[in-house]
Protein backbone atom coordinates (compact mmCIF):
# COMPACT_ATOMS: atom_id res chain seq x y z
CA UNK A 1 0.00 0.00 0.00
CA UNK A 2 1.34 3.45 -0.86
CA UNK A 3 0.64 6.87 -2.24
CA UNK A 4 2.83 9.25 -4.19
CA UNK A 5 2.55 12.80 -5.45
CA UNK A 6 2.89 12.90 -9.21
CA UNK A 7 3.79 15.92 -11.26
CA UNK A 8 0.94 18.37 -11.95
CA UNK A 9 1.58 22.00 -12.83
CA UNK A 10 -1.09 23.80 -10.85
CA UNK A 11 -2.42 21.42 -8.25
CA UNK A 12 -1.52 18.29 -6.31
CA UNK A 13 -2.07 14.98 -8.08
CA UNK A 14 -1.93 11.81 -6.00
CA UNK A 15 -1.54 8.24 -7.19
CA UNK A 16 -2.32 5.52 -4.65
CA UNK A 17 -2.31 1.73 -4.73
CA UNK A 18 -3.84 -0.77 -2.31
CA UNK A 19 -5.09 -4.31 -2.10
CA UNK A 20 -8.63 -3.38 -1.14
CA UNK A 21 -10.96 -0.46 -1.76
CA UNK A 22 -11.04 0.31 1.99
CA UNK A 23 -7.24 0.56 1.99
CA UNK A 24 -7.25 2.64 -1.21
CA UNK A 25 -9.55 5.22 0.40
CA UNK A 26 -7.29 5.21 3.48
CA UNK A 27 -4.28 6.04 1.29
CA UNK A 28 -6.15 8.97 -0.31
CA UNK A 29 -7.11 10.18 3.17
CA UNK A 30 -3.49 9.93 4.42
CA UNK A 31 -2.23 11.80 1.34
CA UNK A 32 -4.74 14.59 1.94
CA UNK A 33 -3.75 14.99 5.59
CA UNK A 34 -0.04 14.98 4.72
CA UNK A 35 -0.46 17.67 2.07
CA UNK A 36 -2.45 19.96 4.38
CA UNK A 37 -0.73 19.37 7.73
CA UNK A 38 2.65 17.69 7.05
CA UNK A 39 3.92 14.43 8.50
CA UNK A 40 4.01 15.16 12.27
CA UNK A 41 0.52 13.96 13.26
CA UNK A 42 -0.72 11.95 16.25
CA UNK A 43 -3.93 10.08 17.03
CA UNK A 44 -6.21 10.15 20.08
CA UNK A 45 -9.47 11.96 19.31
CA UNK A 46 -11.91 9.78 17.36
CA UNK A 47 -14.45 11.09 14.83
CA UNK A 48 -16.92 8.94 12.96
CA UNK A 49 -18.00 9.74 9.39
CA UNK A 50 -20.78 8.03 7.45
CA UNK A 51 -21.22 8.79 3.75
CA UNK A 52 -23.28 7.29 0.96
CA UNK A 53 -23.05 8.24 -2.70
CA UNK A 54 -24.25 7.19 -6.14
CA UNK A 55 -20.93 5.89 -7.42
CA UNK A 56 -17.46 5.07 -6.14
CA UNK A 57 -15.81 8.27 -7.46
CA UNK A 58 -18.42 10.45 -5.74
CA UNK A 59 -18.04 8.40 -2.57
CA UNK A 60 -14.31 9.19 -2.49
CA UNK A 61 -14.80 12.92 -3.26
CA UNK A 62 -17.61 13.22 -0.70
CA UNK A 63 -15.56 11.43 1.96
CA UNK A 64 -12.44 13.55 1.45
CA UNK A 65 -14.52 16.75 1.31
CA UNK A 66 -16.12 15.77 4.62
CA UNK A 67 -12.66 15.16 6.13
CA UNK A 68 -11.56 18.64 5.03
CA UNK A 69 -14.70 20.14 6.57
CA UNK A 70 -14.37 18.38 9.94
CA UNK A 71 -10.63 19.05 10.19
CA UNK A 72 -11.15 22.76 9.55
CA UNK A 73 -14.26 23.36 11.65
CA UNK A 74 -13.27 21.18 14.61
CA UNK A 75 -9.59 22.19 14.42
CA UNK A 76 -8.43 18.56 14.20
CA UNK A 77 -5.51 16.98 12.39
CA UNK A 78 -5.97 13.29 11.63
CA UNK A 79 -3.29 10.64 11.42
CA UNK A 80 -5.23 7.37 11.06
CA UNK A 81 -8.47 6.08 9.60
CA UNK A 82 -10.34 2.80 9.77
CA UNK A 83 -12.56 2.71 6.71
CA UNK A 84 -15.23 0.22 5.71
CA UNK A 85 -17.02 0.44 2.37
CA UNK A 86 -20.07 -1.66 1.61
CA UNK A 87 -22.34 -1.03 -1.39
CA UNK A 88 -21.41 2.65 -1.75
CA UNK A 89 -21.85 3.23 2.00
CA UNK A 90 -18.69 4.34 3.78
CA UNK A 91 -18.03 4.32 7.52
CA UNK A 92 -14.79 5.82 8.77
CA UNK A 93 -13.34 6.19 12.24
CA UNK A 94 -10.74 8.92 12.07
CA UNK A 95 -8.18 9.38 14.81
CA UNK A 96 -6.38 12.66 15.34
CA UNK A 97 -5.31 15.51 17.61
CA UNK A 98 -6.03 19.25 17.97
CA UNK A 99 -4.38 21.51 15.37
CA UNK A 100 -1.03 22.78 16.68
CA UNK A 101 0.29 25.74 14.63
CA UNK A 102 3.88 24.90 15.58
CA UNK A 103 3.70 21.33 14.24
CA UNK A 104 0.98 21.45 11.60
CA UNK A 105 1.81 24.51 9.48
CA UNK A 106 4.24 23.00 6.99
CA UNK A 107 1.58 22.04 4.45
CA UNK A 108 -0.81 23.86 2.17
CA UNK A 109 -4.59 24.19 2.30
CA UNK A 110 -6.56 22.00 -0.08
CA UNK A 111 -9.45 24.04 -1.44
CA UNK A 112 -11.35 21.16 -2.95
CA UNK A 113 -11.34 17.63 -4.28
CA UNK A 114 -11.58 17.62 -8.06
CA UNK A 115 -13.40 15.20 -10.33
CA UNK A 116 -11.07 16.12 -13.21
CA UNK A 117 -8.77 13.20 -13.96
CA UNK A 118 -10.22 11.13 -11.09
CA UNK A 119 -9.62 7.45 -11.81
CA UNK A 120 -10.35 4.45 -9.56
CA UNK A 121 -9.37 1.14 -11.14
CA UNK A 122 -9.29 -2.48 -10.10
CA UNK A 123 -6.36 -4.44 -11.52
CA UNK A 124 -4.60 -7.76 -10.96
CA UNK A 125 -2.71 -6.38 -7.94
CA UNK A 126 -5.68 -4.72 -6.26
CA UNK A 127 -6.78 -1.12 -6.75
CA UNK A 128 -5.21 2.15 -7.89
CA UNK A 129 -6.42 5.73 -8.01
CA UNK A 130 -5.41 9.11 -9.41
CA UNK A 131 -6.95 12.14 -7.76
CA UNK A 132 -6.40 15.90 -7.99
CA UNK A 133 -6.52 18.23 -5.01
CA UNK A 134 -6.98 21.94 -5.73
CA UNK A 135 -4.44 23.88 -3.66
Amino acid at each position, binding site marked *: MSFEEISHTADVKIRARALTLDALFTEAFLALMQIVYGTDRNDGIIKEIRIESDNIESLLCDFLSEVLFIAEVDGLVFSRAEITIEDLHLTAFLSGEPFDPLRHSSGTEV*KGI*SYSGLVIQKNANGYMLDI*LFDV
Partner: protein
Amino acid sequence: MIEGVRHTGVNEWEVPLGYVPGMRVPGKFFLSESLGNNLEHGAIEQLANVATLPGIIRHSLAMPDIHWGYGFPIGGVAAFSLDEGIISPGGVGFDINCGVRLLTTPLARKDISGRRDLIEELFRAVPTGVGGKSTLRISPPDLERMMIKGANWAVDAGYGVKCDLIRCEDSGYMKKADCHAVSTKAKQRGVPQGGTLGSGNHFLEMQVVSEIFDPEAARAFGLHLGQICCMIHCGSRGLGHQVCTDHLKLLESATKKYHITIPDRQLACAPITSMEGKDYFGAMAASANYAWANRQLITHTVRQVLAKMFRIDYESMPLVYDVAHNVAKIEEHEIDGKRMNICVHRKGATRAFGPNSDELPYDLKKIGQPVIIPGSMGTSSFVLHGTKIAMEKTFGSTCHGAGRIMSRTQAKKSLSGKEITANLLRAGIIVRAHSENAIADEAPEVYKSSDEVVNVVHEAGISRLVARLSPLGVIKG
Protein backbone atom coordinates in the same frame (compact mmCIF):
# COMPACT_ATOMS: atom_id res chain seq x y z
CA MET B 1 3.22 25.19 -30.46
CA ILE B 2 0.87 22.28 -29.92
CA GLU B 3 -0.20 20.40 -33.04
CA GLY B 4 -3.66 21.13 -34.38
CA VAL B 5 -3.89 24.80 -33.32
CA ARG B 6 -3.80 27.63 -35.86
CA HIS B 7 -2.01 30.99 -35.70
CA THR B 8 -4.67 33.66 -36.38
CA GLY B 9 -3.07 36.98 -35.36
CA VAL B 10 -0.56 38.71 -33.09
CA ASN B 11 -0.25 36.32 -30.14
CA GLU B 12 -3.63 34.79 -31.14
CA TRP B 13 -4.25 31.09 -31.74
CA GLU B 14 -7.34 29.11 -32.67
CA VAL B 15 -8.35 25.63 -31.55
CA PRO B 16 -10.55 24.51 -34.47
CA LEU B 17 -13.93 22.80 -34.23
CA GLY B 18 -13.44 19.06 -33.94
CA TYR B 19 -10.33 19.27 -31.72
CA VAL B 20 -12.49 17.35 -29.25
CA PRO B 21 -15.88 15.87 -30.20
CA GLY B 22 -18.95 18.05 -29.70
CA MET B 23 -17.37 21.52 -29.87
CA ARG B 24 -20.03 24.15 -30.58
CA VAL B 25 -17.57 27.02 -31.17
CA PRO B 26 -13.81 27.19 -31.79
CA GLY B 27 -11.35 27.82 -28.99
CA LYS B 28 -9.09 30.85 -28.98
CA PHE B 29 -6.08 31.65 -26.83
CA PHE B 30 -3.49 34.39 -26.52
CA LEU B 31 0.13 33.29 -26.27
CA SER B 32 3.59 34.14 -27.63
CA GLU B 33 5.59 31.50 -29.52
CA SER B 34 8.10 31.26 -26.66
CA LEU B 35 5.42 30.80 -23.96
CA GLY B 36 3.95 28.16 -26.27
CA ASN B 37 6.95 25.94 -25.46
CA ASN B 38 5.52 25.34 -22.00
CA LEU B 39 1.90 24.93 -23.09
CA GLU B 40 0.36 21.67 -21.87
CA HIS B 41 -1.78 19.54 -24.14
CA GLY B 42 -4.17 19.01 -21.20
CA ALA B 43 -4.83 22.76 -20.96
CA ILE B 44 -5.83 22.99 -24.66
CA GLU B 45 -8.05 19.93 -24.26
CA GLN B 46 -9.77 21.63 -21.31
CA LEU B 47 -10.19 24.80 -23.42
CA ALA B 48 -11.80 22.67 -26.16
CA ASN B 49 -13.99 20.84 -23.61
CA VAL B 50 -15.51 24.18 -22.53
CA ALA B 51 -16.45 24.79 -26.18
CA THR B 52 -18.83 21.79 -25.98
CA LEU B 53 -21.05 23.41 -23.32
CA PRO B 54 -24.55 24.54 -24.36
CA GLY B 55 -25.15 28.21 -25.14
CA ILE B 56 -21.47 29.17 -25.40
CA ILE B 57 -21.01 32.39 -27.35
CA ARG B 58 -18.36 33.03 -30.00
CA HIS B 59 -15.28 31.25 -28.55
CA SER B 60 -13.98 29.31 -25.59
CA LEU B 61 -11.13 31.64 -24.62
CA ALA B 62 -7.87 31.43 -22.68
CA MET B 63 -5.44 34.10 -21.61
CA PRO B 64 -1.62 33.75 -21.82
CA ASP B 65 -1.33 32.45 -18.25
CA ILE B 66 -3.25 29.39 -19.47
CA HIS B 67 -2.37 26.16 -17.74
CA TRP B 68 -3.87 22.82 -16.87
CA GLY B 69 -6.54 23.11 -14.18
CA TYR B 70 -9.76 21.20 -13.57
CA GLY B 71 -12.96 21.80 -15.56
CA PHE B 72 -11.97 25.03 -17.34
CA PRO B 73 -8.24 25.58 -17.83
CA ILE B 74 -6.71 28.23 -15.59
CA GLY B 75 -6.86 31.45 -17.61
CA GLY B 76 -10.17 30.34 -19.16
CA VAL B 77 -12.98 32.71 -20.15
CA ALA B 78 -16.34 31.69 -21.61
CA ALA B 79 -19.61 33.54 -22.06
CA PHE B 80 -23.04 31.91 -22.25
CA SER B 81 -26.40 33.04 -23.55
CA LEU B 82 -28.92 33.57 -20.73
CA ASP B 83 -31.61 31.75 -22.73
CA GLU B 84 -29.75 28.63 -23.79
CA GLY B 85 -26.58 28.73 -21.77
CA ILE B 86 -25.31 27.07 -18.63
CA ILE B 87 -23.51 28.07 -15.47
CA SER B 88 -20.77 25.81 -14.10
CA PRO B 89 -18.67 25.84 -10.91
CA GLY B 90 -15.94 24.34 -13.12
CA GLY B 91 -15.71 27.77 -14.76
CA VAL B 92 -15.23 29.54 -11.44
CA GLY B 93 -13.22 27.16 -9.28
CA PHE B 94 -13.16 26.28 -5.61
CA ASP B 95 -11.75 29.65 -4.55
CA ILE B 96 -14.68 31.83 -5.60
CA ASN B 97 -13.61 35.45 -6.15
CA CYS B 98 -10.02 34.76 -5.51
CA GLY B 99 -8.80 38.21 -6.44
CA VAL B 100 -6.28 40.92 -5.93
CA ARG B 101 -6.27 44.53 -4.79
CA LEU B 102 -3.66 47.25 -4.78
CA LEU B 103 -3.41 49.84 -2.06
CA THR B 104 -1.25 52.97 -2.45
CA THR B 105 0.61 54.72 0.37
CA PRO B 106 2.33 58.11 0.77
CA LEU B 107 5.57 56.24 1.62
CA ALA B 108 8.72 56.08 -0.53
CA ARG B 109 11.20 53.26 -1.05
CA LYS B 110 13.68 54.61 1.53
CA ASP B 111 10.94 54.47 4.21
CA ILE B 112 10.49 50.71 4.07
CA SER B 113 13.60 49.30 2.41
CA GLY B 114 15.11 46.58 4.62
CA ARG B 115 12.44 47.10 7.31
CA ARG B 116 12.07 43.52 8.52
CA ASP B 117 10.09 44.86 11.50
CA LEU B 118 7.32 45.99 9.12
CA ILE B 119 7.10 42.57 7.48
CA GLU B 120 7.11 40.86 10.89
CA GLU B 121 4.36 43.16 12.16
CA LEU B 122 2.19 42.56 9.07
CA PHE B 123 2.81 38.81 9.42
CA ARG B 124 1.68 39.00 13.04
CA ALA B 125 -1.37 41.15 12.29
CA VAL B 126 -2.77 39.31 9.24
CA PRO B 127 -3.51 35.61 9.99
CA THR B 128 -1.95 33.44 7.29
CA GLY B 129 -1.33 29.83 6.35
CA VAL B 130 -3.03 26.55 7.20
CA GLY B 131 -5.30 26.89 10.25
CA GLY B 132 -4.98 30.70 10.34
CA LYS B 133 -7.92 32.01 12.39
CA SER B 134 -9.46 35.46 12.39
CA THR B 135 -8.75 37.77 15.31
CA LEU B 136 -12.06 39.54 14.57
CA ARG B 137 -15.30 38.54 16.18
CA ILE B 138 -17.63 37.93 13.28
CA SER B 139 -21.10 36.94 14.45
CA PRO B 140 -23.48 34.85 12.32
CA PRO B 141 -25.55 37.99 11.51
CA ASP B 142 -22.30 39.74 10.46
CA LEU B 143 -21.55 36.79 8.21
CA GLU B 144 -24.95 37.14 6.52
CA ARG B 145 -24.26 40.84 5.95
CA MET B 146 -20.79 40.03 4.57
CA MET B 147 -22.40 37.65 2.08
CA ILE B 148 -25.04 40.20 1.04
CA LYS B 149 -23.08 43.45 1.04
CA GLY B 150 -19.45 42.35 0.65
CA ALA B 151 -16.91 45.15 1.04
CA ASN B 152 -19.83 47.54 1.77
CA TRP B 153 -20.49 45.65 5.01
CA ALA B 154 -16.83 45.95 5.99
CA VAL B 155 -16.72 49.70 5.31
CA ASP B 156 -20.02 50.27 7.17
CA ALA B 157 -18.59 48.29 10.10
CA GLY B 158 -15.56 50.62 10.24
CA TYR B 159 -13.06 48.53 8.27
CA GLY B 160 -12.36 51.05 5.54
CA VAL B 161 -13.44 54.28 3.91
CA LYS B 162 -16.37 54.92 1.56
CA CYS B 163 -14.15 55.72 -1.44
CA ASP B 164 -12.69 52.19 -1.28
CA LEU B 165 -15.97 50.90 -2.66
CA ILE B 166 -16.00 52.70 -6.01
CA ARG B 167 -12.52 51.26 -6.56
CA CYS B 168 -13.78 47.68 -6.36
CA GLU B 169 -15.17 45.65 -9.25
CA ASP B 170 -18.98 45.71 -8.84
CA SER B 171 -18.49 48.29 -6.05
CA GLY B 172 -17.43 45.43 -3.80
CA TYR B 173 -20.55 43.28 -3.98
CA MET B 174 -22.65 41.28 -6.43
CA LYS B 175 -26.31 42.22 -6.14
CA LYS B 176 -27.91 38.77 -6.48
CA ALA B 177 -26.30 37.00 -3.55
CA ASP B 178 -28.52 34.37 -1.94
CA CYS B 179 -27.52 33.33 1.60
CA HIS B 180 -30.20 30.60 1.61
CA ALA B 181 -28.28 28.78 -1.11
CA VAL B 182 -25.17 28.75 1.11
CA SER B 183 -25.06 25.63 3.29
CA THR B 184 -24.71 25.65 7.08
CA LYS B 185 -21.36 23.93 6.58
CA ALA B 186 -20.08 26.76 4.38
CA LYS B 187 -21.26 29.33 6.92
CA GLN B 188 -19.51 27.41 9.72
CA ARG B 189 -16.28 27.64 7.77
CA GLY B 190 -16.81 31.33 6.99
CA VAL B 191 -17.25 32.68 10.53
CA PRO B 192 -13.70 32.09 11.87
CA GLN B 193 -11.87 33.00 8.66
CA GLY B 194 -12.91 36.61 7.94
CA GLY B 195 -9.76 38.68 7.48
CA THR B 196 -7.42 35.72 6.92
CA LEU B 197 -5.10 35.36 3.93
CA GLY B 198 -5.11 31.57 3.46
CA SER B 199 -2.23 29.63 1.90
CA GLY B 200 -1.02 28.39 -1.50
CA ASN B 201 -0.41 31.24 -3.90
CA HIS B 202 -2.09 33.84 -1.67
CA PHE B 203 0.13 36.65 -0.45
CA LEU B 204 0.45 40.16 0.87
CA GLU B 205 3.30 42.11 -0.68
CA MET B 206 4.89 45.51 -0.10
CA GLN B 207 5.96 46.85 -3.48
CA VAL B 208 7.50 49.93 -5.05
CA VAL B 209 6.34 51.51 -8.32
CA SER B 210 9.51 50.97 -10.36
CA GLU B 211 8.44 51.88 -13.90
CA ILE B 212 5.66 53.92 -15.45
CA PHE B 213 4.58 52.95 -18.98
CA ASP B 214 1.55 55.23 -19.29
CA PRO B 215 1.86 58.46 -17.27
CA GLU B 216 -1.73 59.64 -17.87
CA ALA B 217 -3.25 56.34 -16.74
CA ALA B 218 -0.85 56.07 -13.79
CA ARG B 219 -1.89 59.56 -12.65
CA ALA B 220 -5.56 58.63 -12.91
CA PHE B 221 -4.94 55.48 -10.88
CA GLY B 222 -3.03 57.46 -8.19
CA LEU B 223 0.38 55.90 -8.93
CA HIS B 224 3.79 57.58 -9.20
CA LEU B 225 7.38 56.40 -9.53
CA GLY B 226 9.04 55.38 -6.25
CA GLN B 227 5.71 55.08 -4.40
CA ILE B 228 5.17 52.24 -1.94
CA CYS B 229 2.06 50.11 -2.51
CA CYS B 230 0.59 47.01 -0.92
CA MET B 231 -0.88 44.15 -2.96
CA ILE B 232 -3.29 41.70 -1.35
CA HIS B 233 -4.14 38.39 -3.05
CA CYS B 234 -6.74 36.09 -1.46
CA GLY B 235 -10.30 34.81 -1.85
CA SER B 236 -13.40 33.45 -0.17
CA ARG B 237 -11.58 30.96 2.07
CA GLY B 238 -13.33 27.82 3.36
CA LEU B 239 -16.79 29.35 2.77
CA GLY B 240 -16.23 29.59 -0.99
CA HIS B 241 -14.51 26.19 -1.14
CA GLN B 242 -17.51 24.57 0.57
CA VAL B 243 -20.01 26.35 -1.71
CA CYS B 244 -18.18 24.97 -4.75
CA THR B 245 -18.05 21.45 -3.24
CA ASP B 246 -21.76 21.51 -2.29
CA HIS B 247 -23.05 22.89 -5.58
CA LEU B 248 -20.80 20.71 -7.71
CA LYS B 249 -22.68 17.75 -6.25
CA LEU B 250 -26.09 19.36 -6.77
CA LEU B 251 -25.20 20.37 -10.31
CA GLU B 252 -23.98 16.91 -11.14
CA SER B 253 -27.54 15.67 -10.69
CA ALA B 254 -28.83 18.69 -12.63
CA THR B 255 -26.51 17.88 -15.56
CA LYS B 256 -28.28 14.53 -15.86
CA LYS B 257 -31.73 16.01 -15.21
CA TYR B 258 -31.35 18.51 -18.07
CA HIS B 259 -29.67 15.93 -20.37
CA ILE B 260 -26.47 17.92 -20.77
CA THR B 261 -23.50 15.95 -22.08
CA ILE B 262 -20.20 16.97 -20.51
CA PRO B 263 -16.70 15.67 -21.28
CA ASP B 264 -15.39 16.15 -17.71
CA ARG B 265 -17.33 15.68 -14.45
CA GLN B 266 -15.80 18.88 -13.12
CA LEU B 267 -17.80 20.73 -15.82
CA ALA B 268 -21.09 19.79 -14.08
CA CYS B 269 -23.54 22.55 -14.91
CA ALA B 270 -27.17 23.56 -15.22
CA PRO B 271 -29.10 26.02 -17.37
CA ILE B 272 -28.61 29.53 -15.97
CA THR B 273 -32.39 29.92 -15.75
CA SER B 274 -32.95 26.61 -13.90
CA MET B 275 -33.53 26.43 -10.15
CA GLU B 276 -30.18 24.65 -9.68
CA GLY B 277 -28.38 27.23 -11.84
CA LYS B 278 -29.93 30.14 -9.95
CA ASP B 279 -29.08 28.55 -6.59
CA TYR B 280 -25.45 28.14 -7.59
CA PHE B 281 -25.32 31.70 -8.92
CA GLY B 282 -26.78 33.05 -5.65
CA ALA B 283 -24.39 31.04 -3.48
CA MET B 284 -21.43 31.92 -5.69
CA ALA B 285 -22.33 35.64 -5.50
CA ALA B 286 -22.58 35.36 -1.67
CA SER B 287 -19.10 33.78 -1.62
CA ALA B 288 -17.74 36.46 -3.96
CA ASN B 289 -19.10 39.09 -1.56
CA TYR B 290 -17.46 37.33 1.38
CA ALA B 291 -14.16 37.50 -0.54
CA TRP B 292 -14.52 41.25 -1.17
CA ALA B 293 -15.26 41.76 2.52
CA ASN B 294 -12.26 39.58 3.37
CA ARG B 295 -9.86 41.65 1.26
CA GLN B 296 -11.37 44.80 2.78
CA LEU B 297 -10.75 43.47 6.33
CA ILE B 298 -7.12 42.71 5.46
CA THR B 299 -6.78 46.17 3.91
CA HIS B 300 -7.96 47.68 7.20
CA THR B 301 -5.35 45.72 9.17
CA VAL B 302 -2.58 46.76 6.76
CA ARG B 303 -3.61 50.42 7.01
CA GLN B 304 -3.62 50.23 10.80
CA VAL B 305 -0.12 48.73 10.86
CA LEU B 306 1.28 51.29 8.39
CA ALA B 307 -0.49 54.23 10.08
CA LYS B 308 0.96 53.29 13.46
CA MET B 309 4.45 52.41 12.32
CA PHE B 310 5.01 55.36 9.97
CA ARG B 311 2.65 57.89 11.62
CA ILE B 312 0.69 58.38 8.42
CA ASP B 313 -3.00 59.02 8.00
CA TYR B 314 -5.28 55.95 7.63
CA GLU B 315 -7.05 57.81 4.81
CA SER B 316 -3.82 58.56 2.95
CA MET B 317 -3.74 55.01 1.54
CA PRO B 318 -6.39 54.88 -1.21
CA LEU B 319 -7.19 51.79 -3.19
CA VAL B 320 -6.18 51.64 -6.87
CA TYR B 321 -8.65 48.85 -7.58
CA ASP B 322 -9.86 45.40 -6.51
CA VAL B 323 -10.40 42.73 -9.17
CA ALA B 324 -11.95 39.26 -9.01
CA HIS B 325 -10.34 36.52 -11.04
CA ASN B 326 -12.52 33.47 -10.27
CA VAL B 327 -16.15 34.37 -10.87
CA ALA B 328 -19.21 34.13 -13.14
CA LYS B 329 -21.18 37.32 -13.76
CA ILE B 330 -24.11 38.59 -15.74
CA GLU B 331 -22.69 41.40 -17.87
CA GLU B 332 -23.90 43.45 -20.80
CA HIS B 333 -21.82 43.00 -23.96
CA GLU B 334 -22.26 43.65 -27.66
CA ILE B 335 -22.98 40.40 -29.47
CA ASP B 336 -23.52 40.49 -33.26
CA GLY B 337 -24.23 44.22 -33.08
CA LYS B 338 -26.75 43.98 -30.25
CA ARG B 339 -26.29 44.83 -26.58
CA MET B 340 -27.30 41.85 -24.49
CA ASN B 341 -26.83 40.34 -21.05
CA ILE B 342 -24.68 37.21 -20.98
CA CYS B 343 -23.08 35.08 -18.27
CA VAL B 344 -19.29 35.49 -18.39
CA HIS B 345 -17.20 32.88 -16.54
CA ARG B 346 -13.64 33.92 -15.68
CA LYS B 347 -11.48 31.26 -14.11
CA GLY B 348 -8.05 32.67 -13.49
CA ALA B 349 -8.79 35.66 -15.67
CA THR B 350 -9.36 39.34 -14.89
CA ARG B 351 -12.14 41.62 -16.02
CA ALA B 352 -10.57 44.35 -18.17
CA PHE B 353 -13.38 46.71 -19.18
CA GLY B 354 -12.39 49.40 -21.64
CA PRO B 355 -12.96 53.17 -21.53
CA ASN B 356 -16.50 54.52 -21.11
CA SER B 357 -17.86 51.39 -19.50
CA ASP B 358 -20.89 52.07 -17.28
CA GLU B 359 -19.24 49.94 -14.59
CA LEU B 360 -16.37 52.38 -14.09
CA PRO B 361 -16.31 55.33 -11.68
CA TYR B 362 -16.39 58.70 -13.50
CA ASP B 363 -12.69 59.45 -12.88
CA LEU B 364 -11.61 56.22 -14.60
CA LYS B 365 -14.03 56.30 -17.55
CA LYS B 366 -11.55 57.95 -19.90
CA ILE B 367 -8.78 55.43 -19.18
CA GLY B 368 -10.52 52.10 -18.67
CA GLN B 369 -10.63 49.72 -15.73
CA PRO B 370 -7.45 49.23 -13.70
CA VAL B 371 -6.21 45.65 -14.08
CA ILE B 372 -3.94 44.33 -11.32
CA ILE B 373 -1.66 41.45 -12.34
CA PRO B 374 0.37 39.89 -9.54
CA GLY B 375 3.77 38.46 -10.41
CA SER B 376 5.21 35.38 -8.75
CA MET B 377 7.07 35.78 -5.47
CA GLY B 378 10.11 37.99 -6.04
CA THR B 379 9.15 39.13 -9.54
CA SER B 380 7.37 42.21 -10.87
CA SER B 381 3.65 42.76 -10.66
CA PHE B 382 1.88 45.03 -13.12
CA VAL B 383 -0.96 47.50 -13.40
CA LEU B 384 -2.65 47.65 -16.78
CA HIS B 385 -5.89 49.14 -18.05
CA GLY B 386 -8.79 47.55 -19.89
CA THR B 387 -9.38 48.28 -23.58
CA LYS B 388 -11.99 48.44 -26.31
CA ILE B 389 -10.22 45.50 -27.99
CA ALA B 390 -10.82 43.40 -24.85
CA MET B 391 -14.52 44.29 -25.06
CA GLU B 392 -14.56 43.09 -28.68
CA LYS B 393 -12.39 39.98 -28.39
CA THR B 394 -12.49 38.60 -24.84
CA PHE B 395 -15.74 39.83 -23.27
CA GLY B 396 -13.61 42.44 -21.48
CA SER B 397 -11.08 40.00 -20.01
CA THR B 398 -7.32 39.60 -19.69
CA CYS B 399 -4.77 37.48 -17.83
CA HIS B 400 -4.66 37.14 -14.03
CA GLY B 401 -1.05 36.32 -13.20
CA ALA B 402 2.07 34.63 -14.38
CA GLY B 403 0.81 31.03 -14.60
CA ARG B 404 2.75 28.06 -13.28
CA ILE B 405 5.17 26.05 -15.40
CA MET B 406 6.71 23.79 -12.75
CA SER B 407 4.82 21.37 -10.52
CA ARG B 408 5.09 21.49 -6.74
CA THR B 409 6.85 18.12 -6.72
CA GLN B 410 9.53 19.43 -9.12
CA ALA B 411 9.79 22.70 -7.17
CA LYS B 412 10.46 20.92 -3.89
CA LYS B 413 13.08 18.65 -5.48
CA SER B 414 15.04 21.45 -7.11
CA LEU B 415 14.71 24.39 -4.71
CA SER B 416 14.89 24.73 -0.94
CA GLY B 417 12.87 27.37 0.89
CA LYS B 418 16.03 28.50 2.69
CA GLU B 419 17.97 29.07 -0.55
CA ILE B 420 15.09 30.95 -2.13
CA THR B 421 14.71 33.19 0.93
CA ALA B 422 18.45 33.93 0.93
CA ASN B 423 18.48 34.65 -2.84
CA LEU B 424 15.54 37.01 -2.54
CA LEU B 425 17.11 38.77 0.44
CA ARG B 426 20.24 39.41 -1.65
CA ALA B 427 17.91 41.06 -4.17
CA GLY B 428 16.52 43.27 -1.37
CA ILE B 429 13.27 41.29 -0.88
CA ILE B 430 12.26 40.07 2.59
CA VAL B 431 10.10 36.92 2.60
CA ARG B 432 8.11 35.67 5.58
CA ALA B 433 6.02 32.47 5.75
CA HIS B 434 5.00 29.83 8.26
CA SER B 435 7.08 27.18 6.53
CA GLU B 436 9.95 26.75 4.10
CA ASN B 437 7.78 24.38 2.06
CA ALA B 438 5.34 27.21 1.37
CA ILE B 439 8.22 29.29 0.00
CA ALA B 440 9.61 26.45 -2.15
CA ASP B 441 6.12 25.81 -3.60
CA GLU B 442 5.84 29.37 -4.85
CA ALA B 443 9.43 30.13 -5.88
CA PRO B 444 9.80 32.57 -8.80
CA GLU B 445 11.22 29.79 -10.98
CA VAL B 446 7.98 27.77 -10.93
CA TYR B 447 6.07 30.47 -12.83
CA LYS B 448 6.18 31.87 -16.32
CA SER B 449 7.84 35.26 -16.53
CA SER B 450 5.20 37.82 -15.55
CA ASP B 451 6.92 40.27 -17.94
CA GLU B 452 6.35 37.93 -20.86
CA VAL B 453 2.73 37.22 -19.92
CA VAL B 454 1.75 40.91 -19.66
CA ASN B 455 3.62 41.68 -22.88
CA VAL B 456 1.37 39.19 -24.67
CA VAL B 457 -1.83 40.90 -23.52
CA HIS B 458 -0.30 44.35 -24.15
CA GLU B 459 0.70 43.45 -27.71
CA ALA B 460 -2.62 41.72 -28.37
CA GLY B 461 -4.28 44.92 -27.09
CA ILE B 462 -6.63 43.20 -24.61
CA SER B 463 -5.13 45.39 -21.89
CA ARG B 464 -2.33 47.95 -21.91
CA LEU B 465 0.58 48.42 -19.53
CA VAL B 466 0.43 51.27 -17.03
CA ALA B 467 3.04 50.57 -14.33
CA ARG B 468 5.48 48.00 -12.99
CA LEU B 469 5.67 47.21 -9.27
CA SER B 470 8.74 45.55 -7.76
CA PRO B 471 8.53 43.55 -4.54
CA LEU B 472 10.31 44.63 -1.34
CA GLY B 473 8.63 42.41 1.26
CA VAL B 474 6.41 39.35 0.89
CA ILE B 475 4.12 37.58 3.33
CA LYS B 476 3.39 34.16 1.90
CA GLY B 477 0.14 32.51 2.79
